[in-house]
């Protein structure tokens, strides 16, 4: 599903955010991406949705080389990848409902479908009662859950989640990862970047550990491994 070949990303100022990363992630896998702050996890995700271009190396998603993707095709790539951003990236002038609905509108879904599915999914993340609130009016954890709802409303084949439990209490965080696991069990490939030792250790999935932009460990049924 996802193949990276010798991918290096150098930001201006000679920052090596990713260096010589090669890996394969198969369809239907569940992967934890761990590593200390600044090790390149968010960069990894940005490369997959073509928010950033790799400095060198090749990235294939469903056998398409996304480096060579035409500009106008990028939106269609992004529709196949649901993404929970570390800073949520909610539209500040839209309500919770509209924020989630937007991801469906973009793909031309009918109003009827939108009005039926959005509240359903929001209920799933525990926000059924906040449909008409604006992001400013939500607690940090609530915003994070809106971002999660938006990411999988279109049932994308790939789901990327950057720190999806960073702003919620441990029990809710576990609930969220359980939800991601459920989504994964329907065939969706899920990649979760996280710092949450407890969760990584509890779920025992494949763990890819980054440090200074390099993969230092790639382990099935792994643990967090930092102290």
């Amino acid at each position, binding site marked *: 599903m996802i193949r990276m070949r010798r991918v290096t990303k150098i930001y201006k100022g000679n920052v090596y955010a990713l260096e010589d990363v090669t890996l394969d992630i198969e369809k239907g896998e569940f992967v934890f991406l761990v590593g200390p702050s600044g090790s390149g996890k968010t960069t990894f995700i940005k490369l997959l*949705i073509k928010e950033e271009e790799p400095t060198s190396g090749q990235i294939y998603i469903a056998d398409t080389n996304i480096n060579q993707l035409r500009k106008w095709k990028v*939106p269609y790539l*992004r529709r196949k990848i649901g*993404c929970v951003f570390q800073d949520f990236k909610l539209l*500040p002038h839209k309500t919770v409902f509209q924020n989630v609905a*937007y*991801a469906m509108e*973009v793909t031309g879904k009918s*109003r009827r479908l939108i009005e039926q599915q959005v509240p359903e999914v929001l209920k799933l993340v525990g926000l059924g009662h906040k449909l008409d609130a604006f992001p400013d009016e939500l607690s940090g954890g609530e915003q994070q859950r809106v971002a999660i709802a938006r990411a999988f409303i279109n049932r994308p084949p790939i789901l990327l989640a950057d720190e999806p439990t960073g702003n919620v209490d441990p029990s809710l965080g576990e609930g969220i990862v359980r939800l991601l696991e459920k989504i994964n069990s329907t065939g969706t490939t899920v990649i979760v970047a996280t710092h949450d030792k407890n969760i990584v250790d509890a779920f025992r999935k494949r763990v890819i550990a980054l440090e200074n932009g390099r993969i230092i460990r790639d382990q099935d049924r792994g643990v967090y491994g930092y102290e």
Partner: protein
Amino acid sequence: MNRVKYFAAETWASLRKNIILAVAAIAVVAVSLGILGLVVMGWNMFTNMIKNAERKVGEVDLYLTDLTTTEELKAIEAFLASIPEVDAATIYFKSKDEALQEFKERFKDQPELWEYIDENPLPNSYELMTKDPKDVGVVVNRIKNDAPHPERIEDIKSASSAIEKLENIFDKFRQIGIVAVVALAVIAILLVSVTIQVAIFARRREIGIMKLVGATNWFIRWPFVIEGVFEGTVGSLVAILVVLSVKVWILDRLVESLQFLRLSFSAGLLAVLVPCILLGGVVIGALGSAYALGRFLEV
């Protein structure tokens, strides 16, 4: 259908959110197109004034050398009276002395111009009017070609040279008008574009987010295009209102009070001007947003 509804809702939301911006854009378009309309109306008024002036003038002056004898004078006068386009009753012989007198009278505030003249430098002349102002050119040609004693005729001055002068001024006005209109249109386009750019700028994070969740470029663009065209249209409607009120409340009254200037509007001016302003607003809005989008919405 769904799309259309979505874009309309999106545009409306953006307009309402950025109401300040929208009002600014509309005001700018209104001012630009309003000025444009006023310039066109003023220009039209002036053109008509000049045209009316043209129609009135039909004078020809014939300057003679001092050597001309009385006989030659008579022959010339007879010839002038025989030209069918000339109103014979208006033929008038103005002597050197009379001309000097007139000159002194005209420049009586500047005696230095004539005080120290010992010999009269002004010529004798014939003044005449054509029956129809349009025939000035014909009359001048006839005199040039057929007049007796052409060696005595020093110069012919006709209203056609006055008309030429007026036409030169009129041409200059037309040029100024065209330059002004083009400059204003460009300013209006730039200012609408600026306001759309600002709208984009104010929402650049939002736009970034929209792209990240898979919105195509055109899906993001349409609301801005519609916003620009809408603002242009509303601005042009305001401009039309302003132009019409200025016409009714000020210019029409001016035409009335300054009758001696023979100001007037061409029939059907408004029937052309009003749709043009409207079209102008739409075009300004469209070009403005197109320019802004071209510069600021590339992926």
